[in-house]
């Protein structure tokens, strides 16, 4: 070994000295990002009013003899038992405060990233091209594109998520089985998690599909029916058969549309995804009856104001009056896009009331008004989707998707149209 001269500082001392002198200024971008996250998390939690996730219970470190014994046993029992012993002996240091906030990271196709913390009641939407990864206490939730999830309950012993639409993949590995629970709720079912990996998807009607890749989950249909345990490799679909569910699904779809969230896809990219707080859940968030009356009383208003007034009437459930006004707008000399918009709203109003044939007519009329306009292409896609989801007429749905692709082969919705055709059995469209 090399002898170190007592007059010269030892290398470790030199290193310590160099590190003491190192400024290591924090990058401004990182500094600002962390500040924003911390302030947002603290604000969302209402200054400690909301319990944080994953407060690890302080465990006493095992005694030295226990440690030695566990090592001896593991050595004797072989590699597998060794792993087990390693797992059980690992001490968690005593931590006096919570150590993890539910955190999300949104990644969009083009690499843009948004991240932040989640509070109870908050809603995350992934958007058309977005994908959200959520880190929770003992679990991880991956939210697929075009999905909407509300975080109903976030506490150390209960995680409850509501999947409004779309698909989530969940990995849940509780530290203390039986004490920590997780569930995913859709309109059709509640999926109780035991400690596993699985995914849940729900369409706009609430039809729910559960697939388990590891462990066991319990699926409880919400409209009665026997709870069923699903094991690894099993899959189950729970239809939202009840009319109430269907009506509710349609109503929510319309509300989103009216709130400007547009579940009926638009050719203009609409990826803006953000963590949307609760406001999107209620009709009341969108304006009072008084405002609607005020708006509807002024026929001389700009088209967008008149469309807005009709939307508000729809929100109040005044479908007849709203459609009457929208018909006038559709037959007026307004710009094509506004007339198509009016017809689309009429179609959605009929859909909400279960009048699918009339809704189909309204969409067809919208297509007829603007056969070569992107708005007309959107209407065609919406028609195809309506036919696919609300009727059993697969061939008509397929024809509408094909017509869309013919008119807008490079349209923003073209990939989805091809996907739909593949789903409907057109093998030529699969994998394109």
């Amino acid at each position: 070994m090399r002898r170190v001269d007592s007059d010269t500082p030892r290398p470790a001392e030199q290193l310590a000295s160099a590190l003491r002198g190192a400024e290591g200024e924090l990058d401004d971008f990182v500094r600002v990002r962390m500040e924003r996250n911390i302030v947002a998390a603290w604000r969302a939690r209402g200054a400690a009013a909301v319990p944080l996730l994953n407060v690890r219970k302080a465990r006493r470190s095992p005694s030295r003899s226990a440690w030695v014994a566990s090592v001896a046993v593991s050595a004797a029992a072989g590699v597998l038992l060794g792993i087990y012993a390693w797992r059980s002996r690992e001490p968690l240091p005593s931590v006096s405060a919570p150590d993890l906030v539910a955190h999300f990271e949104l990644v969009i196709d083009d690499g843009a990233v948004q991240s932040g913390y989640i509070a109870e009641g908050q809603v995350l939407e992934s958007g058309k091209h977005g994908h959200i990864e959520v880190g929770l206490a003992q679990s991880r939730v991956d939210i697929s594109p075009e999905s909407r999830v509300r975080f109903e309950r976030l506490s150390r012993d209960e995680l409850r998520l509501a999947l409004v639409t779309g698909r989530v993949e969940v990995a849940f590995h509780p530290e203390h089985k039986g004490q920590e629970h997780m569930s995913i709720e859709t309109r059709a079912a509640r999926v109780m998690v035991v400690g596993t990996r699985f995914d849940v998807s729900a369409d706009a009607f609430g039809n729910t599909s559960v697939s388990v890749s590891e462990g066991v989950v319990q699926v409880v249909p919400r409209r009665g029916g026997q709870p069923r345990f699903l094991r690894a490799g099993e899959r189950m679909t729970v239809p939202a058969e009840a009319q109430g569910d269907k009506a509710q699904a349609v109503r929510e779809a319309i509300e989103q549309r009216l709130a400007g969230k547009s579940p009926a896809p638009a050719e203009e990219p609409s990826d803006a995804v953000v963590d949307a707080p609760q406001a999107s859940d209620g009709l009341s968030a969108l304006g009072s009856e008084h405002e609607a009356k005020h708006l509807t009383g002024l026929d001389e208003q700009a088209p967008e104001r008149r469309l807005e007034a009709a939307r508000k009437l729809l929100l109040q459930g005044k479908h007849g009056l709203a459609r009457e006004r929208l018909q006038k707008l559709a037959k007026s000399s307004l710009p094509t896009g506004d007339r198509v918009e009016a017809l689309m709203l009429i179609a959605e109003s009929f859909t909400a009331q279960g009048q699918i044939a009339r809704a189909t007519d309204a969409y067809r009329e919208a297509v007829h008004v603007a056969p070569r306009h992107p708005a007309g292409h959107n209407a065609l896609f919406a028609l195809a989707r309506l036919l696919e989801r609300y009727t059993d007429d697969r061939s008509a749905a397929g024809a509408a998707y094909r017509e869309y692709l013919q008119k807008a082969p490079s349209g923003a919705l073209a990939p989805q149209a091809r996907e739909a055709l593949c789903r409907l059995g057109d093998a030529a469209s699969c994998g394109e």
Partner: protein
Amino acid sequence: MTRTPETVQKPKDDERAILRRAAEGDEQAVRQLYRAHAGKLHRHAARILGPSDPDVEDVVQQAFIAALDGAQRFDGRSSVQTWLFGIVTRRALDAARSRWRRQRFSRLAEFVGFGGGPTAPADHRYQAGSEAERLLGVLPPLLRAVFVLHDVEGYTFAEISGLTEVSISTLHSRLLAARKRLDEALAGDSDA
């Protein structure tokens, strides 16, 4: 070794007042607290985990939230910065341990000859821009933490023991081991 002077520049009462206001929900105070300490805490977490480690930011953020959450437990016997250093140290070591646990199966797979290989980085891999930071990377996180707290930041063993809840004798032996490893590694570097 003496403590860095800036911890005594600010009156403790001011610091405590800011911490209290922040914990009560005063956003300005939260920002003030963050801006006063973020740089040092980030650097400290980065020295324990590695500057390019993706957990560094999380550790600092979680430490701040935990500090705000547990502000009522701050007894004022140390400076706010020392207290925050303790939280960051514990969380950084938690993160390192947690990663170690997550990677144990891939390590086992690698050990028995199934896959693994270079794709799974070593738990204590440390990437750094500066030469000094790079050299620090020869230490595993536990030794790195005590070396940084004692020899770089100037905390006493008693203080570090309070921060990390590790006994003084253990800390002492870890520091000696850290210095020995660094001496050997640096001597090796200079011989090369």
